[in-house]
């Protein structure tokens, strides 16, 4: 089983929504489409589902060209950001609805709904109506409906976006487990890098209608092919600075920070990308360099601290473990983990990942 987009392009009027895209998704994989709003995630999913047709290019499912085949004739389910349930149906009837349509026998319906309800912790709510449920439970019901039929393709379009923080955390952990033993291809669209990392599988980074990079999630994160992919896959935003290299000496363009590294690249000008968690209030790794800054604000998340600071012309974001309260305007010293720097050439291509 595989889903393949071949030179798929989507234009609306004179605007291009999806630039020529090639993507092959394999059986039993979860694939994350990661990008900000308007990156083209939803358009790509609608093309995959058959809800929308590409302007040019083809979609192949297994060995069949399914371009133009209607969504009803494809075996796929979709879950949206908004919780979509039938308001006058009970949770049981909501989950059972796709099975009823395809004429599954009542006994089997009962068994399959029961099984998926248990998986999604909805067993106690089967007789309730959606409006008696919390937001998280409503979205679980929509997920259960997508899971109850044996779809070849399951498309999840930002399914956790409307949930509050704690529920999102919980469901994000459960989702990959739900798909572990299923014979299908899952596509999951999100704007949040942490979603992709927690889900694992494969990730495609997207920007303005282009698929920038596709591969194993952790590999895309650790070895972004270029600066664009690195930026899409970083939240809080990646710190980027211009540097120069001469021998083993590297320094920021403004000379404020200098470090040694045996990274094997030619002397010259580069950009570095430093993820916020590689700048910390304590030393981490064997090879760190100090940076002095003035605190813009210290944001606390409960178990970690985001310190925004400036060292003259550049603003930086750092992420440290624990609660690190700093006053606005305070001078502070932080440590950058040199071994985790990403180096990009002047064309923004990755030349070394530390």
């Amino acid at each position, binding site marked *: 089983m595989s889903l393949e987009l071949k030179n798929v392009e989507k234009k609306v009027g004179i605007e291009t929504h999806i630039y020529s895209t090639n993507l092959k998704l394999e059986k039993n994989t979860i694939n994350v489409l990661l990008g900000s709003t308007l990156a083209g995630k939803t358009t790509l999913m609608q093309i995959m589902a058959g809800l929308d047709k590409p302007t040019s290019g083809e979609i192949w499912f297994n060995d069949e060209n399914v371009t133009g085949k209607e969504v009803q004739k494809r075996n796929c389910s979709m879950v949206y950001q908004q919780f979509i349930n039938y308001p006058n149906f009970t949770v049981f009837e909501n989950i059972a609805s796709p099975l009823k349509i395809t004429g599954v026998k009542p006994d089997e319906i009962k068994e399959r709904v029961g099984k998926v309800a248990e998986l999604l912790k909805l067993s106690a709510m089967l007789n309730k109506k959606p409006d008696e449920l919390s937001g998280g439970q409503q979205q679980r019901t929509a997920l259960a409906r997508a899971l109850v039929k044996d779809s070849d393709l399951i498309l999840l379009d930002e399914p956790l976006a409307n949930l*509050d923080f704690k529920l999102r955390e919980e469901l994000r*952990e459960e989702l990959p487990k739900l798909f572990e033993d299923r014979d299908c291809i899952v596509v999951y669209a999100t704007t949040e890098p942490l979603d992709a990392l927690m889900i694992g599988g494969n990730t495609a980074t997207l920007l303005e209608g282009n698929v920038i990079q596709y591969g194993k999630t952790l590999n895309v994160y650790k070895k972004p092919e270029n600066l664009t992919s690195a930026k899409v896959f970083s939240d809080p935003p990646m710190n980027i600075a211009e540097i120069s290299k001469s021998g083993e000496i590297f320094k920021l363009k403004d000379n404020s920070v200098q470090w040694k590294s045996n990274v094997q690249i030619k002397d010259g000008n580069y950009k570095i990308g430093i993820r916020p968690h590689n700048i910390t209030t304590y030393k981490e790794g064997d090879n760190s360099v100090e940076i002095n800054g003035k605190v813009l604000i210290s*944001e606390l998340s409960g178990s970690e601290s985001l310190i*925004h600071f400036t060292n003259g012309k550049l603003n930086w974001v750092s992420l440290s473990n624990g*609660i690190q309260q700093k006053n606005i305007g305070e001078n502070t010293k932080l440590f950058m983990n040199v071994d985790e720097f990403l180096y990009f050439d002047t064309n923004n291509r990755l030349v070394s990942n530390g």
Partner: protein
Amino acid sequence: MWMSFYILIQITDWYPMAKITLKDLSHSYLSKQSSDADWALRGVDIDWKDGGAYALLGPSGCGKTTLLNIISGLLKPTKGEILFDDKNVTALNPVERDIAQIFQFPVIYDTMTVYDNLAFPLKNRGLSKTEIDSKVKEIGEMLELTSTLNNKAAGLTADGKQKISLGRGLVRSDVNVIMFDEPLTVIDPHLKWVLRSKLKELHQKINRTMIYVTHDQIEALTFADEVVVMHEGQIVQTGTPVELFEKPKHTFVGHFIGSPGMNILPCEIENGQINFEGKIIPNNNSIKKINYNKTQLGIRPEFIKFSNDGIKVKIKRVSDTGRHKVIDTECSSGSIKILANSSTEIPSDSAHITFEQKYTYVYGDDWIIE
């Protein structure tokens, strides 16, 4: 750019603000109450100092909006009193209480200029033209709106409009308290930190009592010196961000603050010690045995280490977030989450773990036992 930070502004005539005392407040939307669940708010006692920055934090349905409405006077509590500077204001209506409130969505006049929007609350109170002018310019500068003062509000972005709402709340110097109700909801996620720092900076400059209501832990912990965590109509803990993280007084605080939240596991208490999975777990103090319906051990994922002996667990799943690894493990008492450095080698099948004593707590019927 409205993000230049270190402009010093001379503030001359801010009035002293009020301290706020809430005494045994309870509220029910029902006419008769038979159980705890019938109360939207139960036994709330708070002392807020004059000029402090406070936050009310909790999920939807926890009672924080009810409490906010009681403080502002939109709602009369079923029981209890509200005092501003020791003066009982429970019977006063919202106008008489002199409160500035900033809501989730911008409340501004689209057809007016930014200047007139900011001047509006002052005109209503009959301030002179020169007084109004100096105040509007002062607040305009603080919020970096100076260059847009003569523009119509209609043309501004959502965060631009919300800045005007903030300005309208902050421009009056005669209010007892400024209350913020989820004020950053409409702000683009990438801009939130800028407004957060602005609010914090403003509080430091004008030193007025501010109450910030939110369900978002980052908003609350970043803004407030002291956070009030609410759960099912009750205050479960009042404390600094460090206290809430390091020593949750209630299992809900452990769960809600931090990501992932605290592991809460069933345990027994024997001879003043914790017995978990048949092992004695070192704890900070001797535990008095009282008849609890349930006793639980609380340990944050950050404070669990792999070791050669200790509790035996099965490794279920490892998620590598690039920054650290979140490890799902299981023992016969339930699942335990562990947070480890990304470079940590994770045993593939089963492992032994130990809990850092300093951060191991026991809860009796969800409240910490000390």
